[in-house]
């Protein structure tokens, strides 16, 4: 029977970050990955915020296969027949230490896995972990490809379904309310065409979010990130909402309708779809996090529920990287103590609480509930769209005064609704 210091389940960002950190400290670590190669089962919207994680992995970023530095932000409220868009750019986005970059996970993770191997970490692809090995409630290893592999500690970075923590008794099965499904196409476009269409320079990129009628009033929204020679175009929809009978259309149809919108079609015109993928996203925030540690086991990345949707920023990858890093730090401390029980591994939770990871989740603990307000996905986009229509319209006859137009849309009842919603928004 094989025995390792540490077994990591899954070569995603959390697992690779943990392995990179452990291997750097000379800890014997093996990463078990079910894909053909690291990255082959991994999919993200495609935007990594570097600021929170840059210093956790010094020297890693200079050569990393990042796509474009995001220098232009955009957001669009989509009404049924109209839309309202704004863009933001600023000098802080145009530095040589960009705040965020677009990435394609299969490329990035494969490269990251090579850096882990350079440090002496072992990566076993084509290896599916089916179960934890439990003895008196303590995790002592895993069953992989039918074989039992033992370790002092297991770090579960097995992805959003979190099957290993579920089987180890750290969490209940996922509830539809706490998850969304993201569908995405990677669409090839010439790099120069991307520069021109999105008003960016060489190596620079744009990120754009969309909300409103594209999800037919359901919780969710669209995104577009520019890569070097492609764009990542996706739509995210609450699993609970799309599952309901009254929802309009199924997920693939909603995505096709989104692509065909007059706001989207010109952006991808002439492009060639190269891949169609999907990924489930944790949306429950702090309340829906898994237990983070147990006897012999730590949980990191999507598996722990580390993704946070704040409306204007949608983040997951840096929480995965950082939680993997802190899981490794916790294991290093446990190794020094020679104990891997829950009480010792609890330092992981402490490290996360002292870092941006759990600080963010605590700060924004009410955000998932506030953002689930259906007004945000139907009523307000229509209201803003109609207001804009009337402000811009020049009729055949005389035009109403601006104040009359405003009063027509912003009635007392409307203002009351907005005030009530604003009180909720104040909590985020």
């Amino acid at each position, binding site marked *: 029977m094989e025995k390792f210091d540490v077994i990591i389940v899954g070569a995603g960002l959390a697992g690779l970050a943990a392995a990179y950190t452990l291997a750097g400290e000379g800890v014997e670590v093996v990463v078990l990955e079910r894909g053909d190669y690291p990255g082959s089962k991994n999919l993200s919207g495609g935007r990594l915020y570097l600021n929170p994680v840059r210093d956790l992995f010094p020297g890693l970023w200079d050569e990393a296969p990042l796509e474009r530095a995001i220098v232009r932000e955009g957001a669009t409220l989509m009404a049924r027949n109209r839309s309202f868009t704004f863009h933001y750019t600023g000098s802080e986005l145009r530095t040589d230490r960009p705040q965020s970059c677009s990435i394609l996970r299969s490329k990035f993770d494969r490269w990251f896995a090579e850096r882990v191997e350079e440090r002496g970490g072992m990566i076993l692809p084509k290896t599916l972990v089916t179960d934890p090995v439990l003895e008196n409630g303590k995790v002592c290893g895993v069953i992989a*490809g039918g074989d039992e592999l033992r370790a002092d500690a297991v770090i579960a970075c097995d*992805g959003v379904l979190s099957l290993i923590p579920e089987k180890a008794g750290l969490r209940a099965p996922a509830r539809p309310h706490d998850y969304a499904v993201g569908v995405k196409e990677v669409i090839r476009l010439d790099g120069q065409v991307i520069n021109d269409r999105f008003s960016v320079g060489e190596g620079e990129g744009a990120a754009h979010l969309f909300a409103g009628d594209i999800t037919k009033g359901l919780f969710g929204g669209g995104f577009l990130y520019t890569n070097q020679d492609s764009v990542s175009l996706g739509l995210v929809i609450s699993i609970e909402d799309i599952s309901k009978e009254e929802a309009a259309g199924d997920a*693939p149809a909603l995505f096709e309708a989104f692509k065909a919108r007059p706001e989207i079609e010109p952006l991808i015109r002439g492009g060639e779809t190269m891949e169609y993928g999907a990924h489930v996203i944790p949306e429950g925030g702090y309340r829906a996090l898994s237990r983070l540690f147990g006897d012999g086991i730590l949980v990191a990345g999507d598996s722990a529920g580390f993704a946070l949707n704040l409306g204007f920023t949608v983040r997951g990858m840096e929480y995965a990287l950082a939680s993997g890093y802190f899981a490794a730090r916790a294991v290093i401390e446990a190794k020094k103590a020679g104990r891997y029980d829950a009480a010792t591994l609890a330092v992981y939770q402490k490290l996360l609480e002292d870092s941006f990871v759990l600080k963010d989740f605590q700060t924004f603990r009410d955000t998932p509930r506030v953002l689930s307000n259906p007004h945000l996905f139907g009523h307000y986009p229509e209201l803003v769209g109609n207001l804009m229509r009337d402000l811009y319209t020049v009729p055949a006859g005389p035009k109403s005064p601006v104040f009359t137009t405003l009063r027509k849309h912003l009635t007392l009842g409307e203002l009351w609704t907005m005030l009530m919603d604003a009180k909720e928004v104040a909590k985020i």
Partner: protein
Amino acid sequence: MSDLKAKLGLNVFKPLPAPHIRIRPGMERDPRLRAAARACPAGLYAEGADGVFTLTIDGCLECGTCRIACGTGVLEWGYPEGGTGVQFRFG
């Protein structure tokens, strides 16, 4: 639907030795499966005129939406064997 099949055809798949997700025997008419039919990004669940749901595993993106949408009471759900199934080249 044929558009969706064509899109799935762009992906790299390594043949599955056996289906990794199954509707539990006798549960083919369970209304919970309607959630998977609506939510599955690959459109792999279909409801026949007789109310019987079928699952075609080819093209599965292994996202797990159906497991969350319907639960394991109605689906036997596992990841495919290592090295098989969808292999994202871009991700």
